[in-house]
C-alpha cells in the first residue's frame, strides 16, 4: 500500500493508491460505455446527418431486451449479448425506413426533435410497464468473482466490460477505416449521390448504418444491465454525458469518439479522487473549453 500525492501547485493532496486505482477502474468502465455510445452516435451522424437523441433510450431497450429475454425465455447473458442488439437494431431499421428517411433534406433540428420525441415515448412506455424502480440482472456465472491484483481488487465482470467494449470499438473502427465496406461508408458520407451513381445502394446502406448504430447502443445496454439497474431512465442519465463526449471528440469522427469516450471516463474517475466536488461537471467544463478553442472537436475535421 502506498500513497500518491498531487504536486503542491494543485493542492498537494495525498490519497491511497487503492482509491486511485479503484476510481481509475470505474473511470475506464464508464469510459467503455461512453465510447460505445458516442461511437454509435458518430457513425449515425456521419451517414445520416442526424443527431440521434433516442440513443439513450435504445441503450435502455438493449438492457430491457436482455432482462425480458432472460425472464420469458430463459436466454442467458451471452446469447442475449448477440440477440438483444439484433432485435433493437431491427427497431432502428424500422424507425429509419418509416420516419428518419423523410428528414434528410431538412435541417439537423428536425432529426434531433424527432429522435428526442421517440426517446420520450420509449421511456414513457417502459415506465408504464416496469415502473421506475429498476430491475435486477445478475452477473453471468462465468464472470462472477474477481481477482486481487495486489494493489486493488478487480471484479471479473468489469474487466470483461472494458475488454469487450474496446474490442467492439476497435472492430468498428477497423471496418470503417480499413475495409472496402468502410470505404463505401466514408465516400457516401462525403458525396452520397456520386457513390450511388457508381452502383451502390446508398439508401440501403444508410438504413443498415442506423440499425448498426442502434445495435451498438443496445450492446452497451446489455453490458450495463448487470452493473447498473435495468431502469427506464438509465439511458437519459447517461446520454447527456455522452453528447458532451461526442462534442469534445468531434461529431462524425470515429476514432475521436472512441478515444474521447475512454479518455473522459478516466478523467472523470481521476477527478473523483482528487476533486470529488468537480467530478460531475468536469466533462462539461472540458466541453466548454474545447468548444472555445477547437469548435470542431479534438478529432473533428473543420467543415
Amino acid at each position, binding site marked *: 500500500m502506498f500513497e500518491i500525492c498531487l504536486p503542491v501547485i494543485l493542492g498537494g493532496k495525498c490519497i491511497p493508491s487503492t482509491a486511485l486505482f479503484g476510481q481509475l477502474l470505474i473511470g475506464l468502465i464508464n469510459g467503455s460505455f461512453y465510447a460505445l455510445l458516442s461511437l454509435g452516435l458518430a457513425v449515425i451522424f456521419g451517414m445520416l446527418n442526424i443527431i440521434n437523441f433516442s440513443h439513450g433510450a435504445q441503450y435502455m431497450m438493449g438492457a430491457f431486451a436482455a432482462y425480458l429475454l432472460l425472464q420469458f425465455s430463459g436466454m442467458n447473458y451471452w446469447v442475449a449479448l448477440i440477440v438483444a442488439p439484433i432485435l433493437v437494431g431491427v427497431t432502428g431499421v424500422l424507425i429509419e425506413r418509416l420516419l428518419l428517411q423523410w428528414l434528410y433534406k431538412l435541417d439537423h433540428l428536425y432529426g434531433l426533435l424527432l429522435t428526442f420525441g421517440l426517446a420520450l415515448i420509449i421511456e414513457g412506455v417502459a415506465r408504464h410497464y416496469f415502473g421506475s424502480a429498476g430491475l435486477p440482472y445478475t452477473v453471468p456465472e462465468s464472470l462472477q468473482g474477481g481477482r486481487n491484483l495486489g494493489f486493488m481488487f478487480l471484479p471479473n465482470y468489469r474487466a470483461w466490460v472494458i475488454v469487450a467494449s474496446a474490442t467492439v470499438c476497435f472492430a468498428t473502427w477497423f471496418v470503417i477505416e480499413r475495409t*472496402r465496406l468502410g*470505404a*463505401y461508408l*466514408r*465516400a457516401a*458520407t*462525403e*458525396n452520397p*449521390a*456520386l*457513390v*450511388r*451513381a*457508381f*452502383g*451502390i*445502394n*446508398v439508401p440501403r446502406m444508410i438504413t443498415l448504418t442506423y440499425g448498426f448504430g442502434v445495435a451498438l447502443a443496445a450492446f452497451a445496454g446489455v453490458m450495463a444491465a448487470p452493473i447498473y439497474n435495468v431502469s427506464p431512465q438509465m439511458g437519459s442519465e447517461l446520454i447527456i454525458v455522452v453528447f458532451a463526449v461526442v462534442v469534445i471528440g468531434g461529431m462524425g469522427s470515429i476514432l475521436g469518439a472512441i478515444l474521447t469516450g475512454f479518455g473522459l471516463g478516466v478523467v472523470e474517475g481521476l477527478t473523483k479522487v482528487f476533486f470529488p466536488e468537480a467530478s460531475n461537471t468536469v466533462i462539461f467544463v472540458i466541453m466548454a473549453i474545447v468548444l472555445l478553442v477547437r469548435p470542431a472537436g479534438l478529432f473533428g475535421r473543420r467543415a
Partner: protein
Amino acid sequence: MLDVTAPLLAIKDLQAWYGESHILHGVNFDVREGEVVTLLGRNGAGKTTTLKSIMGMVGQRSGSVRFEGRELIGSAANQIARAGIAICPEERGIFASLSVEENLLLPPVVKAGGLSLNQIFELFPNLKERLGSSQGTKLSGGEQQMLAIGRILRTGARLLLLDEPTEGLAPVIIQQIGKTIRALKEQGFTILLVEQNFRFASTVADRYYVMEHGRIIDQFANAELDANVEKLHDYLGV
C-alpha cells in the same frame, strides 16, 4: 451482337427538374456504340444536367433514356450504374477521406470486361506513382482528373459520361486526356463528352450536339466542323 442500327444510348424528350426549376425541356439525341459524342453549349445550357439525368442523379426526370434497348427512366442511379453506364463528374468527385488507392478501387465492378489496374496505369503512369498517397484530394488537379477517369474504367461500364474533363488543366495534361480518350475509343468504349472547349473536342469527337436553354438546337459530324465554325462561335459566344 447488338443491332448495329439501334443506338447504344437513345434519349427522347428528356426533361429534368432541380426542385422547382425546370432545366431540361425535351432533349433528343442518340449515341451509337463506339462513338465519341460531344455536347457543346454555353454555361447553363443544360449539358451537365443532361449527363446527370442520364445517370439518374437529378431530383425529377421524365421522357425516355434507353441504353442497350433497355428503358432506364424509372431506374435509380445505382441500377443505372449496374446497367453499364459510368460518370466522371465535372467536380471530379475525388473523396478526401479515401486514399488514392481506395478512390481508384471504390466503384464496384458491374460487368466483365473492365480494364485491369495495369491497363489503367498504362494510360495514366502518374497514378501508379501516387498510389500510396494518403488522401485523394492531395493530388494535383490533373492527377485528380486521371484518377476520376481511371476509376470508372475498371467497372466494366461501356458507356462513359465525361463532364468537362479538361476544365482548368494545363495544355500538356489536356493533350494527355485527349490521347486517353482516343485510346479508350480504340478499345471500344462509347463516350459522351461535355465540353466548352470545342478545339479540344475536335481532337476526339465523331459528332457534336449543341445545347441551348435545355434543348438540342443543332448537330453535325466532325467532318462538318470547319463548315460550322462560324455558327459555333455564335452558339458558344466565343
